[in-house]
């Protein structure tokens, strides 16, 4: 009988993804305190919407709620983070040319990658976290983020390029990276 209650079903569907949900919120808000608030809010929202969740992939469903809660929160509390609305064209630049990065990274230090990732726009962090940390497919990311599959691919390409640039550019020149 207990397993039939909404609370029990929610526990089964949503709580296994708690750490992944927190990780996404933490990367999007870049603050542990804010991530705590956002995750709690997202879980409460997920619980209210739970009746409309028709089984299926609980993780993707939860991620999309966490993601949306994060952006709502960022718009409300961190307007300067999203001061310039993310613009595909603006961030695409002209780097997709035949000239590969000048420097090859043979090994990347996790701590450095972490710092570099923190410097990327939220939309780049979002696709990288979902792809590299959660191992989601383009299709899953497209559904969670509400963008086209082609956009997922191009956004990932630009995100990786920016990341690479940050990792190979001396700190003094980071601002122009």
């Amino acid at each position, binding site marked *: 009988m207990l397993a039939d209650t909404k609370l029990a079903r929610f526990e089964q569907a949503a709580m296994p993804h708690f*750490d992944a949900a*927190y990780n996404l919120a933490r990367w999007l808000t870049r603050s542990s305190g804010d*991530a705590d608030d956002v995750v709690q809010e997202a879980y409460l929202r997920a619980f209210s919407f739970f009746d409309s969740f028709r089984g299926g992939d609980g993780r993707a469903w939860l991620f999309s709620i966490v993601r949306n809660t994060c952006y709502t929160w960022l718009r409300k509390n961190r307007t300067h983070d999203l001061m310039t609305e993310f613009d595909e064209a603006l961030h695409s630049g002209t780097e997709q040319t035949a000239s590969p990065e000048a420097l090859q990274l043979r090994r990347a230090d996790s701590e450095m990658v972490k710092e570099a990732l923190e410097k990327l726009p939220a939309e780049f962090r979002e696709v990288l976290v979902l792809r590299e940390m959660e*191992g989601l497919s383009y299709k899953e990311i497209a559904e969670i983020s509400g963008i086209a599959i082609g956009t997922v*691919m191009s956004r990932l390409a630009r995100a990786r390029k920016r990341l690479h640039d940050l990792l190979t550019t001396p700190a003094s020149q980071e601002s122009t990276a």
Partner: protein
Amino acid sequence: MTCKEAQAFMDGYLDRELDLVRSIDLERHLHDCPACAALHQSRLAVRAAMGAGSLRYAAGENLKKKVRLAVAGQDREERRQERKKRRWFHIPWPALAASAAAVAVLMVLWLRPAPNSVENEVVAGHIRSLMANHLMDVPSTDQHTVKPWFAGKLDFAPPVKDLSSAGFPLIGGRLDYIDGHDAAAVVYQRNQHVINVLVWPAAGAHDDRLRASARQGYNVVETVRGGMQYWAVSDLNPAELRQFAELLLAP
């Protein structure tokens, strides 16, 4: 495959989202092109630094507990609201409608307008006249005694008729006071039934109809004729009372 194409397909290849034919082409290109191979290696290096879980943030146990509590709290609140809603919908609507209708009827009865209050007074006057042994101020079966008796006491002359031949003998008259008027009470009889006819000048229009009603077991007939308001009250049956009224009012 050109370097430009190789770079365009690099991410799809890294993410295993590239189709097989292009993947093989790309691998061949990477084998032949050191620059693109270096780029590929760089990507793999960054991925290795990110993917091993080293960049993952773990939620604290406290947060997990806190969120569980919050969700459980919301669950309780939702169920409380649900119960409240159910209670509301479970109100026995037919019973409620019936009692509302009953209240409405009572209100209507309560608020019955003024004409009935005159009828009340008339019937009450009739009952009082029988109870208090004050049926007549002038006991007489002679209309020529009764009619002049009123003359000195009222500013109008009530019609007094001799209907004894029709079986409604006159037995007297008295003064009464109804609805704020001095009224003449002319008393007739039908066998053992007393008929009180209350008369006073009426502002109302002439009325050809006789309005019959019943109240507290008494029958009442009312009309307005020739500027006079007539009320006849008796425990006589309605048919005979109406017959009496028609005889009384006949020109």
